[in-house]
Every structure is written in C-alpha cells, then in structure tokens.
C-alpha cells in the first residue's frame, strides 16, 4: 500500500464504520485461528517443535554471514545465478535488468511479500513490464488495484459478491454469480493462459538451505510451480533471513508453517528448487532492505525469525477488527508492526501502538518471537526518539509533570473525580482520545489517599 498521511487509528476508524462487516472480518479470521488450534493440538511434540525452530533461527541470526556465503556457493555450484540487493530499489532494478536481458516485458508472479515490500509491481509497471499475480487472492486485489491485506489470505477483506462483480467486470463472468467454486474456475482459465504464454516467472522463497543451496516454495494452488516450470526464466526473491542451516531443518519448519497459518498439516505443494530446469535460467535475488540493521537492534533482532505464517494476524484482536490496510505497510498485523518501524520510524511510529499488548501473538508464534514485548519496546524507542503521535506526546508530558508533583497530583485527582461526577460530557466526548474507544469509569467518592487519611485519623 502506498504511504499516506493516515495513521492506524484513523484508517481503523474508517474500517469500523461498517460494524457488520467488521464482525464478519473478525469471525472469518477467528475461524482460521481455530483451525490452527485444531491442527496444533493433535501434534504432541508441538511445543518442542516451536522451541527447536526458535533455537535454529537464533543460530541462523548469529551465523547469518557464513550461512549466506555457504548458500551462495552451493546455489552457484547448482547452476543458479545469485544477485545481492541492498535495498528495495536495487532489488527492483535487478529484476528488471534480468527481464531486459531476456527481452521479456510480460511476466507472472506468485506470492512474495518481499516484492510487496519493495513495491515491485508498481516499479515494473512504470518501466513497461506487465505483471500478473497468479495467487487467486493476490490476483483479486491486483484487479481491484489494491495491496494484499493479509500475507497468507490476501483478499480476506473481500466478500464473494464483490469478487463476483470484479470478475464480471474484468473476466467477463455472468453478473451476479458469486459462487466461490465458479469464480475460482474462471480465474483458473484466465490464469492458465498467462502461465502458458509468459516467459518469466517470479516466485518468493519460504526457506533457503545453506547446506545444499536449494530453496523451498510453498503454495496450495500450485501457482508458483505452474509459473516456474513453464517459464524460460525463473527469478526467486528472498530476504537474507530466509536461510536455514541444514536440509533436515526443513522437517521442523514445514511441520510448523502451515499448521500455524491455516491449520493444514502441510501446503499442497512444498517445492524444492536445486537446479534450473534444462534450458531454463534460474536467478535468486538476496535482499537486505534494512534487515541487517534490524539484526543489530538487540531488542528487535528476533523479528527476523519470522516465517510469515500470519498466525499472529489471525489471533490479534486489533488486526481482526481493523483490517490489514489500516497498517498501511506490506506486512500488516503484529509482526508487521515490529518490522515496519525499522524501515521508517516516522512513517510507522503509529504501528507499535496498534496493539493491546495482550500477548496472544507471542503465544501462537511458531518460532517464539516475543512480538508483544517488542511492540512495547518499540513504543519506548519511538517516544524517546520523538516519533510518538502528538496527542499522545502532550498527554504523556501532562502525565509526567502531574506525577512529578504531589500537590498537582492530589489536585488533579480531585478535579478529575469532580468533573466525571458532575460534568460527564466533559470527558465523554471525542476530544478525549481515551474515551474514543472506552467508557469512562464511574468516579470514586474519594481517592485512596483521602480514604487512608480519614480512616487512619479515625482510628488514631
């Protein structure tokens, strides 16, 4: 999603206008969370798997330099061309130059949140390359000129009737047909023609194995494979943190990924690419884009352990009720809220505050990222560095001076209780940011200080 000047609270307020839709969105995602629970509870060693995955990722982050070199060497020996991109801009230019060298200006792309983060589609469009997203959900949002609102379920915010209308407009399906089976069939026909005619395919990477130089791409639809195996050129884009040390570690991560994501025991396809197909060229673009910086932030380093399952999205009470677009960044939800401030503290200063800090995200995370604790720590960093939202800053400054002076504190407490009691509308209005999302409590008759003084005096 393009940056705009709206923050999470404003965008969430817009999403919340249609209350019935919010309930529907909330329930749909909670349904996915429940499917995750069912899949997880039948695996007795689940917690041991999480702990192992977490420790593997800790090792990866502590030895990333060597693992990347090992991966590069093995991939090159396997016949893969490896490229390195320091940032989003360089990533996009590398992809474009590979396409140019092959005289290709029409491509297919399967799901890659990295390419969303780099705004690759917009870039390629600006240089005259036509990109067709082939994941069904991504194709739907692409036709609607939107960004995905969820990293696993890109169009979870769309209703089937709206998709029916969209397909009527773009794919010529009969007006009023909103049957998911029928619409998926129409998309299948539409996209198969693209698979058969496009000479380059971009895919993401779920895991890249240092030991073997192979990378693994997981899909349910088979779109990454349809694209890659029919194209002359396959470009796989990965962040530096996708590395895992050993092939056998795939066993741990593939057991965790889809159970956490959708409650399936595994994705339909877990494809391992070692070498290019005969007659094909295979490229990997390894992208930093701020990740090495995040690696140096001790408090936030663990965010790089993420395997993009979106379990934290589905369980988050704020995400479920505010929608993915309210996060105004490619990766929404709790994990996105700790990744985004690393990219731009000013643009994303609002996101660590878009949480209740309930900790549900950390509880479901398959690699045990301390998500809610990092959200809390980002708040402190952002306030200290002067990036906090203005209203919050003023309120915090007022609170700080009140708490610093016992006299002002006692007076303010008395005033507050008196105001709430006699003039409730003065706090129960939209000028009070706290009241916006909460009911003000009934005022107590007296403060604890006053009560203590009175009772102690009585007894004394």
């Amino acid at each position: 999603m393009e940056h705009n000047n709206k923050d999470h609270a404003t965008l969430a307020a817009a999403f919340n206008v249609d209350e019935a839709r919010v309930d529907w969105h909330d329930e749909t995602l909670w349904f996915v969370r429940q499917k995750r629970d069912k899949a997880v509870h039948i695996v007795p060693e689940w917690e041991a798997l999480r702990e192992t995955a977490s420790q593997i990722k800790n090792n990866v982050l502590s030895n990333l330099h060597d693992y990347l070199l090992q991966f590069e060497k093995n991939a090159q020996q396997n016949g893969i061309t490896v490229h390195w991109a320091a940032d989003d801009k360089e990533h996009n230019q590398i992809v474009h130059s590979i396409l140019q060298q092959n005289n290709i200006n029409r491509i297919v792309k399967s799901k890659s949140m990295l390419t969303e983060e780099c705004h690759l589609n917009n870039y390629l469009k600006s240089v005259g390359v036509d990109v067709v997203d082939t994941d069904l959900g991504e194709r739907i949002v692409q036709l609607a000129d939107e960004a995905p609102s969820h990293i696993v379920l890109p169009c979870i915010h769309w209703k089937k009737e709206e998709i029916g209308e969209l397909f009527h407009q773009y794919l010529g399906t009969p007006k009023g047909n909103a049957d998911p089976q029928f619409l998926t069939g129409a998309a299948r026909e539409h996209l198969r023609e693209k698979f058969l005619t496009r000479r380059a395919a971009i895919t993401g990477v779920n895991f890249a194995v240092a030991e073997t130089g192979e990378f693994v791409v997981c899909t349910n639809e088979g779109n990454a494979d349809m694209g890659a195996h029919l194209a002359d050129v396959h470009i796989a884009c990965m962040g530096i943190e996708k590395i895992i040390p050993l092939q056998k570690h795939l066993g741990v991560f593939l057991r965790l990924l889809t159970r956490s994501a959708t409650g399936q025991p595994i994705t339909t396809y877990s494809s391992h690419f070692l070498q290019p197909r005969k007659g094909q060229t295979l490229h990997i673009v390894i992208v930093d884009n701020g990740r090495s910086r995040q690696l140096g932030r001790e408090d936030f380093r663990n965010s790089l352990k993420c395997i993009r399952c979106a379990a934290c999205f589905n369980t988050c009470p704020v995400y479920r009720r505010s929608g993915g677009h309210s996060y105004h960044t490619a990766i929404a939800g709790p994990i996105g809220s700790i990744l985004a401030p690393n990219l731009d503290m000013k643009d994303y200063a609002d996101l660590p505050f878009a949480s209740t800090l309930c900790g549900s995200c950390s509880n479901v995370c398959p690699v045990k990222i301390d998500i809610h604790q990092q959200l809390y720590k980002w708040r402190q960093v952002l306030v200290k560095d002067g990036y906090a939202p203005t209203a919050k800053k003023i309120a915090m400054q007022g609170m700080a001076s009140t708490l610093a002076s016992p006299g002002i504190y006692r007076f303010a407490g008395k005033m507050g209780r008196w105001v709430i009691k006699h003039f409730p509308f003065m706090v129960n209005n939209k000028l009070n940011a706290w009241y916006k999302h909460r009911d003000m409590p009934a005022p107590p008759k007296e403060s604890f200080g006053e009560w203590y003084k009175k009772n102690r005096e009585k007894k004394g």
Partner: protein
Amino acid sequence: MSSREKILSGIKANQPSLIALPDVENFVQPFADVVEKFKTVLKAIGGNVHAVQNVAAIIEVLKAQFADASRIISVLPELNDYATLYQQGDDPHLLNDVDVAIIKAHFGVAENGAVWVTEAILQERVLPFICQHLVAIIDKNTIVPTMHQAYEQIAGTSYGFGTFIAGPSKTADIEQSLVLGAHGPKTMTVFILA
C-alpha cells in the same frame, strides 16, 4: 563496495555471538499404524486413496474413475496397456491438455498425506501441476511417520527439483470457502501398493 560486500559486512558487524544449533533428532513418532494415518489424512485434505495388491487393480480403478478422459499419460512402463508413456523432450507447454497423469512417488508421509517426487520420476517438472487429475503410486512399506523421517530419506539423494504433493491443488481465498482445483489438478488419487 558492492552491495554484496556491503550487506555481508553489515551482517557481520551486527550479528550476535554464535548461538549453538539445537538437536533435531528424537521427536516422537505418535502413530500406531502409519498406513492408516496416511490414508486418513490424505482423505481429510481432499485426496482419494486406494490400497491395492497389483497394477491390474490400479488400472481397473482408473478405468472406472476416468472413463471420459481423452489424454492419459504415465511415466511408468508397466502401465503401457492403459496410458501413453511420457518421455522427456517435448515442450512442457504441450502437456496442457493432459487429463490424467500417472506417476510414482518415492515415499509417503503419514502425518500430512504428502508424497515426495523428484524430477527423475516426473520427466518434466510441470507434469504433476499442469494435468487435470493426478495419480501417484507408492509402495506401502515406504510410508514414513513424519517430515523428520522424510528428510532422512531425502538426505544424500540427488535431485534438481523435488516436491512434496499433498492432495489436489486448492484455494480458500474467496471467503475461506475451500475449492479443489485452483491451478493444478482437481483431484489427486494415491494408490498404496502392497
């Protein structure tokens, strides 16, 4: 300094001191009967599964299931009487009109109903994705309990491309309604050969 050097030196400067790798052996194997578990899970994720004694039994099932199919290909010479033997060399795009593709798989995984196939079996990588219906044959005694044992099987083998396939291609992108047959096969049938 190239981007490669810049990225690598940044990582080296910022990565914490080495944390040891954990042991990934010794996870429990919770299934009393791996074949039954495989069948149950594969059915639950939308696959068809048949336990058979021989190739003749496979052909009998396929004849009934795919009576209307016009292009049926296989990579197994033992199915010559029923399907056209496919050999690599053709343009993969020409597989677009394949109704049924019959392959063998190296092994199955009980916990998730997946089968492991590699390029050597497939002849053409796109084959199990582009066909309308996929049929895979596995030996009963190759089914392993979990992905840990699966990677023990894969370790040391050589392949340019390999994939786990678990059931038919699917999507639930439209309002979480499960639809079988997204881009790949609309059905997947696995024969477990005794």
